[in-house]
């Protein structure tokens, strides 16, 4: 997941909250929009998958570290993990 850092504004999340969510509920306090990338990685361990994805994300500029932060999570699937 790639989202804007804390403090950096997120017009998309704001617009979704103001123009859609607020019209139907007041329980949602904040909406943040970002990009979701899922990688099927062919490695043994979850930690290895996380390391690899982090490395790719950083070195190949899948995100801009000045603006974004990333959240990396792994999950085992049959033949790989994401």
């Amino acid at each position, binding site marked *: 997941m790639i989202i*804007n850092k804390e403090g950096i*504004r997120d*017009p998309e999340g704001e617009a979704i909250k103001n123009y859609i969510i607020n019209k139907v509920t007041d329980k949602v306090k904040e909406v943040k929009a970002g990009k979701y990338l899922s990688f099927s990685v062919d490695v043994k361990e979850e930690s290895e998958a996380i390391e690899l994805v982090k490395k790719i994300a950083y070195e190949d500029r899948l995100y801009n570290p*000045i*603006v974004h932060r990333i959240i990396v999570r792994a999950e085992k699937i049959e033949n790989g993990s994401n």
Partner: protein
Amino acid sequence: MTISLSSYELELIKKELKREPKEEELKVIDALWSEHCSYKSSKVFLRSLPSEGPNVVMGIEDWQDAGAVDIGDGYAIVMKVESHNHPSAIDPFNGAATGVGGIIRDIISKGARPIALLDMIRVGSLRHERNRWLLKGIISGIGFYGNSIGVPVVGGELSFDDSYTDNPLVDVACVGIVRKDKIIPSVVKKPGLKLVLAGLTGIDGLGGASFASRKLSGEDEIGAVQIADPFAGKIILDVTLEIADKVEAIKDLGGGGLAVAVTEMANGLGAIVNLDKVPLRVKGMKPEDIIISETQERMLYAVKDENVKEVCKAFEYYEYPCAVIGEIIEEPKIKFLYEGKEVVSLPSSLLLSPPIYVWGIKEDGEQKINEKPNVRIEDAIRNIVTSEDLVNKEWAYSQFDYEVGTSTVIKPGEADSALLLLPNGKFLAIKGDANPDLCVEDSYECGKAIFAEAYRNLATVGARGIAAVDHLQFGDPKKPKVYAKFVEAIRGISEAARFFNIPIVGGKVSFYNENSKGEPIKPTPLIVMAGLSDKPFRPSIEEGLDIVLIGI
């Protein structure tokens, strides 16, 4: 956040105030005295540019605002050029996009409807991965904003040189149209007007003006990142044009945030701003951050009491924040109040008159290259046709909606200048030109040459130049060789403008463009020229036509 004021300037401030300035006050002064807002290193020379002419309806007031020229039938065009170089170096997509947003707000703050955008992009060679990343982000950022806001990008330049590797140049220009008698000033003439602010203020873009007025430090510049929100920009555009009749002055919030907008709008009169009234995006902002935040998509209006309601109602329709935050006062002081306390109280005159500098000048001792280089003609041709500069630019302009407005007669890629149908039935030609390679060798000749080139480009679509804006982009002005180039370029541009009798109705200066090794970019003055024609023109090339070359 760092303060860029020099020790000399700090002394000056203390002497004027006869007291120690408060922390908050220093930040306000820092913003107003930044190079970006005050032109302290360039003003002396900029005054030599010819800015008058019989068709100029609004000249340049302190080089801050867009200028306007009469085009007949009761209409005027408003034009302006800007760059967003430093923000684009750290976040190309948002940096370029917010550049478009900024230039559009400059045009609408005159009450004019923006009708055309140009983008002039310079990056390092695409052989480097990072430059490709930069260029992709820049082009899609410009498209993102321009397309969303519904102003066609009708032309521009795209060229490559390794001197821009760490410091790309992202220049955008905008032309707007307005009824001549409906042009709105950016400054007020009398006290008592209410200050109305539209848009939320956040902590993004803290200290951007001073960021643009120094070298890129490479450290975490998060405060300087501004996120583009073209949707909000479009609301600002629509509402501003809707209420233009009901306001006395309009000012875009750009570099230096509220501090600069309020002070410049008061223009020597005073203002009281109640910071508690400023609509905030995040809770718990410090008062000084509210004052200098550079959050995009905000606009300041000076409004007569009786019109305030109607102005804010127009924003309410779009569920966009709008608030009365203060008032213009007689006493020539800029005051910011927070929770009942005065956090800033500074004389307008101090803020509006920073020290003016003329830095040392040293001519480049190097021999100018006059002899013909010894190249084989085959190699020369191969080099030229394989040059990144000369490839088809469709990849770039096909990402821009150049048709919106249904007025684009000559579209990108069709000729050397764009041509647009105006509401009075005339045709507007517009083009931007620079020539950094020539400037490296002789920046005086270069100043003349780019002006003439812009004029020729307009001529290729049958138009005659009527007004120009310039953008001067250089390295660190305190370096004598850089400064010498700067001064020479202005001399060249001035001379050409006088020769063609075309007024320069606006412009912009951007210093401190350097790579990570501290080497300046190639000097890159740029001219954007607008011209008029009575007839439409459409190039049509067919077999059997003769080729004629004019000139020696």
